[in-house]
């Protein structure tokens, strides 16, 4: 199968409730649409800080059964900075987790608090990116993430939704405001996607589906939507393969 990396997915609680730690059904859905590899972000921990560590263990178990097709990312409750940094360090030290995800809107924390600066340094130390839910004020604006990236030029910062419907122009401005800001095409409408493709450096665009938050199959919309962009070969290769491999450091990880 050709490599096509989905840079934004989740392993939602509904999957464990049904399938335990067995990713076969999850992988079958991705495979049906030609997705070969996925970055798998937390879900339960975004709602419940007390569930974060256990979810990390679960994610690691699930992904370890995927033959390299699923790569986990971790999260933290930034309001408890000491515990947050130590839990993220625990995950990253194992080598399997390749990114740190924050959903500042759901998690109720600002991107601009000092603890997030510490987290950005930790990400740089391990060579993994920070991945943010973005497109939602007051805690999840692309401009807030752009300034964080400017303060931490060694840390890659990914806009997980490239601004959604309302903030995609701000997302494009954020990508152009710092060389370490990346945008994941996952959320904007067609006009927004075209805007981003026109204005952002190709080498910092990714693609994602937000698949797995629930059991519902959203890929029947998200995958063909990208076909409407009529990406040329170079664009498709960058967005689906080489860019995610670079930003998540997947060279040795992918099966």
């Amino acid at each position, binding site marked *: 199968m050709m490599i096509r990396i989905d840079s934004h997915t989740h392993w939602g609680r509904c999957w464990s409730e049904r399938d335990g730690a067995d990713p076969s059904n999850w992988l079958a859905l991705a495979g049906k649409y030609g997705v070969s590899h996925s970055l798998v972000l937390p879900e339960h921990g975004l709602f419940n800080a007390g569930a974060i560590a256990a979810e990390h263990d679960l994610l690691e178990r699930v992904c370890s059964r995927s033959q390299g097709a699923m790569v986990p990312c971790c999260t933290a409750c930034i309001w408890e900075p000491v515990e947050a940094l130590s839990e993220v360090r625990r995950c990253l030290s194992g080598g399997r987790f390749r990114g740190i995800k924050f959903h500042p809107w759901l998690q109720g924390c600002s991107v601009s608090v000092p603890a997030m600066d510490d987290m950005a340094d930790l990400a740089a130390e391990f060579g993994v990116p920070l991945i943010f839910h973005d497109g*939602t*004020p007051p805690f999840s604006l692309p401009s807030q993430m752009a300034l964080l990236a400017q303060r931490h030029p060694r840390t890659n910062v990914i806009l997980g939704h490239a601004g959604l*419907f309302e903030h995609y122009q701000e997302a494009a401005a954020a990508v152009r405001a710092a060389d370490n800001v990346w945008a994941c095409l996952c*959320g904007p*409408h067609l006009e927004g996607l075209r805007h981003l493709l026109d204005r952002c450096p190709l080498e910092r665009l990714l693609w994602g589906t937000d698949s797995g938050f629930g059991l*519902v199959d*959203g890929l029947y919309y998200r995958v063909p*939507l990208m076909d409407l962009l009529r990406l040329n070969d170079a664009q498709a290769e960058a967005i689906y393969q080489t860019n995610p491999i670079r930003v998540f450091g997947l060279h040795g990880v992918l099966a």
Partner: protein
Amino acid sequence: MTMIVDGYVTLGDGLTRDALLRQMDAAGVARAVIAPEDRELAVYNEEGNQRLLAAAGRAGGRFIPACAATPWRGEEAIASLDRAVRGGCRLLVFAPAVQGFMMTDDRVAPLLHRAGELDLTVYVHTGPHSMGAPTQAVLAAQRHPGTRLILGHCGSTDHAWDIGAVARCHLADNLFLETSLARPWTVPQYLEAAGADRVIYASGAPRTDLAFELDRMRETLPVETHPGLYGDNLRRILGEAG
């Protein structure tokens, strides 16, 4: 057979009248609401209204023209709305985030009131965070029970969580939901909560692709079993048969 009506298309923003008609033909869409461009919503109300009326006049009934009147223009806005309706406009569009107000502001009340007197349906863009909350539009609808409001986009994305509660508990007789920008797989639950006669399909082109959106929605909800969604509901509230 259901005549498919696309409940919201922006005529302009690069989409010409002829191109729209071609896209509608190719997708099997009989008629479409045509709405002003953002700059016409924000500033050039009158020019936009006249432009859309002219386009509709040359489209053999296939376009349903909407109009704009910004509440910031006060009395002038009322006069402009009256002119637009006399000319044939069938809906009034509010895009509070583009026009710079909230649906709960007092300044929007005279226009909502006048729309009710004119039996004119009001389409409200919902979704933008502070200025497009569906809950704001619901309060406006409660204050103006004689005015029909369509909640455009079902609050997508971040206000989508409001729609469940609105549909279950606050859907007064003058409220309707519209699906453009809502992910197709979310629409069945809105239909379930709001009822089949309260949800209106739209593509939101040209921000989206007219044919693709219809195709994906049909994959989710077939036209044959959902005539209200694909046209009958809109035609009914516009006072046409159905």
